[in-house]
């Protein structure tokens, strides 16, 4: 295929050529950045929390009537008992917070009692001996809490546990060489011995600004004696819906003096995950929608402009056909023409995409665009261009040679 005659013809359509190339370039710049953002968000969405989400639900319980801390202890014990007796419930424990909740306590953890030089920040989860089996956490070293280790903590008590369980990520940070079990770390002025290490449990926060220590969690052996706390319930497989529906009424039947919001007092982890990542998911959906529409618009624009060119050049096509050009020659002429414009567009677009990414990096916390995304965008747009030009090009190849003799 000869390229020079195509270039000569394009020179007569400078404005149209430039417009298509510009549109391809802009579309490429936006689409590959959008794809990159979609990927970033989807990665965030699919981060495992480390707990057995499909079989868990959470009840947000608040006490009415201002019970004293001593009373709360017995109220909570009877609640845990009530919950355990519900058919379909496998295990339960009370805590201050749980992964994806976006609310929680964070402490510095380190090798000395003064808190000025912590190794890292860690999320603090209150736990008892049932926490590990309830959450489905995998203990990879050491042991679980013993029932006699579990303390009680009110709104204003001290958290200075003598035994703690940490995640493997935190253990590695604290003790890079060798096992952490049996060693001492400080989250308060008193030493805490690490009795166990669990494989993985994310902090309650999903915000990307806290991602640095997102896997650094510490479980401390306390039951919360506050006026509001969370019950995490593990159900037997297949019982989630059933238990979720009845649990609120059963707790109220056992004791009326409480607050469990009818709206979100009982949540499955599917709900909790959906709420936690709502904005990320929304952004990914929006980006996908906009990318798709952009590609359709660009495709339609190419179809429109090429159709017009074909209509304008019917006579010339007829002449070429009369002089011996085959249908295939005409078809490949238009395909090549589009490819040339497309290549010009994607070269310009590649530069724009990187510039746009650099600007976005400066404005928002965002990573550097991986070259794969530009490449994927280039291929998509070139294919889109060829696809869009196919129909008008086929119409052009169907122009009969006799067209050359008309209206001369």
């Amino acid at each position, binding site marked *: 295929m000869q390229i020079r005659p195509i270039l000569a013809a394009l020179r007569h359509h400078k404005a149209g050529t430039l*417009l298509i190339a510009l549109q391809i370039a*802009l579309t490429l710049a936006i689409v590959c950045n959008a794809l990159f953002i979609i990927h970033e968000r989807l990665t965030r969405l699919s981060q495992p929390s480390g707990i057995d989400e499909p079989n868990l639900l959470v009840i947000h319980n608040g006490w009415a009537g201002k019970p004293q801390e001593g009373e709360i202890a017995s109220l909570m014990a009877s609640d845990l008992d009530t919950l355990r007796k519900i058919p379909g419930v496998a295990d339960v424990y009370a805590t201050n917070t749980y992964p994806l909740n976006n609310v929680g306590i964070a402490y510095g953890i380190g090798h000395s009692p003064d808190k000025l030089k912590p190794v890292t920040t860690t999320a603090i989860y209150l736990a008892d001996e049932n926490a590990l089996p309830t959450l489905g956490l995998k203990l990879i070293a050491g042991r679980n809490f013993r029932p006699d280790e579990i303390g009680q903590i009110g709104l204003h008590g001290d958290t200075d546990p003598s035994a703690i369980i940490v995640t493997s990520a935190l253990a590695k940070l604290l003790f890079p060489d060798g096992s952490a079990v049996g060693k001492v770390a400080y989250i308060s002025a008193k030493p805490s011995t690490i009795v166990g290490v669990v494989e993985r449990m994310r902090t309650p926060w999903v915000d990307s600004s806290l991602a640095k220590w997102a896997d650094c969690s510490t479980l401390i052996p306390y039951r919360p004696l506050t006026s509001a706390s969370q019950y995490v319930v593990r159900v037997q497989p297949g019982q989630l819906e059933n238990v979720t529906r009845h649990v609120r009424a059963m707790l109220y039947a056992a004791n009326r003096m409480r607050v469990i919001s009818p709206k979100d007092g009982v949540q499955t982890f599917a709900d909790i995950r959906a709420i936690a990542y709502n904005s990320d998911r929304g952004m990914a959906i929006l980006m996908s929608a906009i990318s798709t529409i952009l590609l359709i618009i660009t495709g339609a624009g190419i179809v429109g402009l090429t159709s017009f060119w074909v209509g304008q050049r019917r006579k010339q096509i007829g002449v070429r056909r009369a002089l011996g050009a085959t249908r295939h020659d005409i078809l490949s002429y238009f395909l090549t023409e589009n490819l040339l414009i497309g290549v010009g567009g994607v070269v310009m677009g590649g530069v724009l995409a990187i510039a746009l990414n650099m600007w976005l990096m400066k404005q928002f916390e965002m990573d550097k665009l991986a070259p794969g995304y530009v490449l994927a965008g280039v291929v998509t747009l070139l294919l889109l261009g060829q696809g869009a030009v196919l129909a008008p090009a086929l119409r052009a190849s169907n122009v009969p040679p006799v067209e050359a003799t008309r209206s001369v």
Partner: protein
Amino acid sequence: MFGYYIDIAVRSLRRNKVLTALMILTLAMGIGASITTLTVLKLLSGDPIPQKSARLFYPQIDPNTLDGYVADKTKPDTIMTYTDAMSLLHAHRAKRQAVMALTQAKIVPQHANDHPYFTDGVMTTADFFGMFDVPFQYGGSWTADDDESRAPLVVIADFLNEKMFGGGNSVGKIIRINDHDFRIVGVLKHWAPQPRFYTQGLAGRDYGDGDAVFMPLQTARSMDMGPQDTECFASVTDVQHLETAPCEWVGLWVELDDSAAVAQYKSFLDGYVRQQINLGRFKRSDTALLDVMGWLSDQQVVPDDAKLQVYLAFGFLLICVVNTVGLLLAKCLRRSREIGVRRALGATRGAIFTQFMVEAGIVGLTGGLLGLVLAELGLLGVRHEPAEYASLAYLDIEMFLLTFVVALVASLIAGLLPAWRACVMAPAPQLKAA
């Protein structure tokens, strides 16, 4: 003449329905996306108290240790200790001043059969209402004396009054909050500034409904109500008595009428910090005194995603405009003969130019109208999002008008090149070819 242009334009647009529909639809989608995202951004970055935002200031000081401190590079803390806030409050150096913290207030309904529930509460001091122009439906604020005497008084929001007392004048009635009886002294009219500037730094929501109950800070604290956020800068053994603990948990707002008052207050604040350093209480000397909008931008209250969406939507609109230029150009070149004939019959270049611009304008206005429908659909989608600001996403009259301005400007820019190409075309070759 203008009517004639419109007539020709409509005829020409109807001649090629698919192309016209494509142009209008593209433009409409670009405009719909831009207006939707812009409406959300405008809502999120608005001035919550426009009549006063330049006169309200948020003093900041820093009681932290020198660990991690870089002189001139470390911002002072977002909240204060009770001790400092109360000292600054009692100094009365501003026209008005109020200390505040947020709490979860448990409301016990009057009917024995209803379940108690939690609402958003503000623990504050008497000047809060006058300083923030909070409108009252019934009654009014408590006084500074009530603050000091820890009177069990409360101001409730309109929606809570509606729910508890059916919306009547409930001043003087008793409401049970966190298992203590409070006497209602005031009922607010609807008041929900967006963003909720006074909750920044205190761990409240940024947008959405207003707070339900407002209680005197000292009263609420004496009943053991805790703040939403507590940040301690030294080891703490007793968090029960937050008033004396090395913990920050309150915010202070002051009203200052002119720049002289602002300068005076800033130097007072600096003086206070110097004094605390001399006493050995403070180590860091940085202070700040931002006004409402400055404080909101410092707190980066507008979510990044909202900004990203606006950029994206305008990029989208740009591509739609480029696309429309291409399609209009194609249409215009196809009509070269018609233009030749008109020019030969005496139409001036200006007339041809105007006619093509009219055509582009019609495409733009139709696109704008359709874009408005799409924007309304988009906002309907936003309202169904579970975001804090979801319920506020409505198109106001300003954005309504802006839609048409954007549509018209976009289409006229798109029409410029084709119209110019049409009017500079030499008529003779076109006539010959015919």
